């Protein structure tokens, strides 16, 4: 690969990387909020809402993320509205990953012993107070490694949003290959950029896992 091609490609790809990072960050926030809500409803919600939360997690865990994205992007225009492709990406990834994140939170909530709820009840704490002051802080330690793992998977899933036309990292790579070819070099470069973002996170998870095994 010539130096000129490398620098031009890099400038296009870095531009795409910014979009990837923004999409990831917004979807991580959205997915975490949706996941936490679904986990809480499924564990403590009244009967009807627990069922809806269960249906939600099962539905999205059982369908490909691309289908979710297509449904949101084209579904909205089907009903006569327009949705920005970035917004469609954020909504699609948040809703899709929220289903997995809900299961991460649910296993964390269930790992907190029943005795913590019982003693809180005796001490006069309400259910909501117990959840936020006693249970949720304890789940942090349990859910953080799998949660980061889920975030990693979300970051990689952003590449699929290129399919509905968002100019993120993957889309940038495709655009270059379409013009100059050299798919091996260009996609190799794209892969390196994803890796540079994801590797520190996966290292952190490994480090954290080893530490909690030791403690």
């Amino acid at each position, binding site marked *: 690969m010539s130096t000129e091609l490398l620098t031009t490609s890099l400038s296009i790809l870095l531009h795409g990387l910014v979009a990837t990072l923004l999409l990831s960050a917004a979807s991580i926030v959205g997915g975490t909020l949706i996941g936490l809500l679904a986990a809480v409803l499924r564990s403590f919600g009244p009967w009807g809402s627990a069922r809806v939360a269960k249906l939600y997690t099962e539905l999205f865990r059982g369908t490909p993320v691309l289908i979710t994205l297509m449904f949101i992007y084209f579904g909205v225009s089907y009903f006569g509205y327009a949705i920005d492709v970035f917004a469609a990406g954020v909504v699609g990834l948040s809703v899709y990953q929220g289903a997995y994140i809900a299961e991460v939170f649910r296993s964390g909530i269930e790992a907190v*012993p029943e*005795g*913590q709820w*019982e*003693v*809180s*009840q*005796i*001490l*006069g*704490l*309400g259910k909501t*107070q117990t959840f936020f*002051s*006693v249970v949720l*802080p*304890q789940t942090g330690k349990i859910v953080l490694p799998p949660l980061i793992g889920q975030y990693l998977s979300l970051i990689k899933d952003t590449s699929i949003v290129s399919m509905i036309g968002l100019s993120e990292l993957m889309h940038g790579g495709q655009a270059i290959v379409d013009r100059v070819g050299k798919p091996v070099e260009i996609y190799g470069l794209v892969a390196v950029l994803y890796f540079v973002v994801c590797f520190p996170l996966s290292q952190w998870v490994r480090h954290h896992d080893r530490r909690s095994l030791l403690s």
Partner: protein
Amino acid sequence: MTTSIGSKPVINLNGVSKSFGATKVLKEINLEVRPGEVLVLIGASGSGKSTVLRIMAGLETADSGEVWVNDVPLHDVRRAKEIRGHVGMVFQQFNLFPHKTALGNVTLALIKARKMSAVDARKRAMDVLDRVGLADRAEHYPSQLSGGQQQRVAIARALAVEPGIMFFDEATSALDPELVGEVTEVMRGLARDGMTMVVVTHEMGFARKTADRVVFMDKGVIAEQGVPEEIFVTPQNERTKQFLHRVLDH
């Protein structure tokens, strides 16, 4: 015990039954506890003694019968919540909040449920931690404390809300033998101070020395009850004799 015992019961169980699935764990239990009384429940595992305690504390609901605790009808689902924050309970597994220091464990309910200021809550917490001999461990996390110390923090946390009654559910069963003494010592101190206590325990020494009344439970019924001397020296019921023979001669 030399402390005076009031006459009007603070706990009154009237014909209380409870089943878990097809298993009847309590059959028509009648039991009264008077203010200042130290009642010790003994019996084999599965005899129903922990269930009686958990019903009194509002953690389980009786299937039938009446349960009055501190003038709250626990059998009435609409009013059962009123008991929360007015009794204390100490569990076998301590149930300390692992993410809070000893001080934080004690102050949490004072601040969140009682709406005390952080300053007042801290002062109250230091008082009760001092009472269980752990004022110097206030900033330690549960994981940095021995089992005996953890259970004493749990007692301090229960005392901080100034409960009318203290329940102990096998509070020393999870402790190494050499750590049992420091916990039973704190419990004896509470009994001397006139605290109403219902204690489920396997520590027969504690039952004998500290109880005002001992209740022996067997297969979901109260088989025999009386002052410690009666139960331990001259038991009448054949099941009581067998049980004491098993736990005392090993």
